[in-house]
């Protein structure tokens, strides 16, 4: 397995690796966004619950 040739992709390295790179970015970004959303919702709801409790005391 000639790795140099593999990464060279017959001269199309920029295009092929660029495409796969951006695909990886999109896949990671969507997951990260989903996790971030969850974190934010949890934080906000906890604060909201805490404020409610405080108000009820």
């Amino acid at each position, binding site marked *: 397995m000639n790795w140099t040739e*593999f990464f060279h*992709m*017959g*001269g*199309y390295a*920029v*295009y*092929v690796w*660029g*495409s*796969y790179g*951006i*695909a990886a970015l*999109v*896949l990671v*970004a*969507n*997951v990260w*966004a*989903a*996790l971030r*959303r*969850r974190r934010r*919702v*949890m934080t*906000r*709801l*906890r604060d*909201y*619950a805490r404020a409610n409790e405080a108000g009820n005391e």
Partner: protein
Amino acid sequence: MPINYKYAAPKNFYALAGTLTPWLAAATVLLLAAGLYMALFVAPPDYQQGESVRIMYVHVPSAWMSMFVYVIMAGAGAIGLVWNIKLAEVLAAVSAPIGASFTLLALVTGSLWGKPMWGAWWAWDARLTSELILLFLYIGFMALQAAIDDPRRAARASALLALVGVVNIPVIHFSVQWWNTLHQPASISSIAKVGTPAIDPSMLWPLLIMAVAFKLYYVTVALMRMRAEILERERNTAWVAEVLSAR
């Protein structure tokens, strides 16, 4: 056929989705790994396009996903509109950014695939032009949702928009095809014609595996997002309070 409405209740869906997500994520990673391995190492280079044909294994599945997610979005919107099922509304809302990012990916990879072939970063070929219009449709959907404060009106209005869009999409595809054959020489649409005549199995398998991997990915991420949205929507219920205190 008895339909189990148990999981239409947010609390049960939340639990079910929570159980499923890790398995779906694992399956997605496995399939992606298999697909990438086949696309990069097993599939042969094209006699015309050389190694750049490997871009197809990302470009074509993401184009398929851009359409697939839009249809799901419109379908879920319709179900939410007709039967007032909140979960359907949530599915539609969370699908939009995922579908839009696949559309963007299809456009970028299409451009990267086209540059070595056509010598230009962009060409108004039928597939890319249709994808561009689809991106505008996604953006319109998200803009409408964002512009309406009332969540109920937002979900219903964007559902209607998505339905009008989904009916229009075949019309748009057909029109763009027609327009394209008038204006472009046949060689440029050769990329859109990958798969005719019969595509070789060594190229078909990676394509299909990547396509299924992307679909599983979408389901995984959609479920993740839906869980977060459900928590927010159901914030005043006891079960959500339990979830919050449990972590």
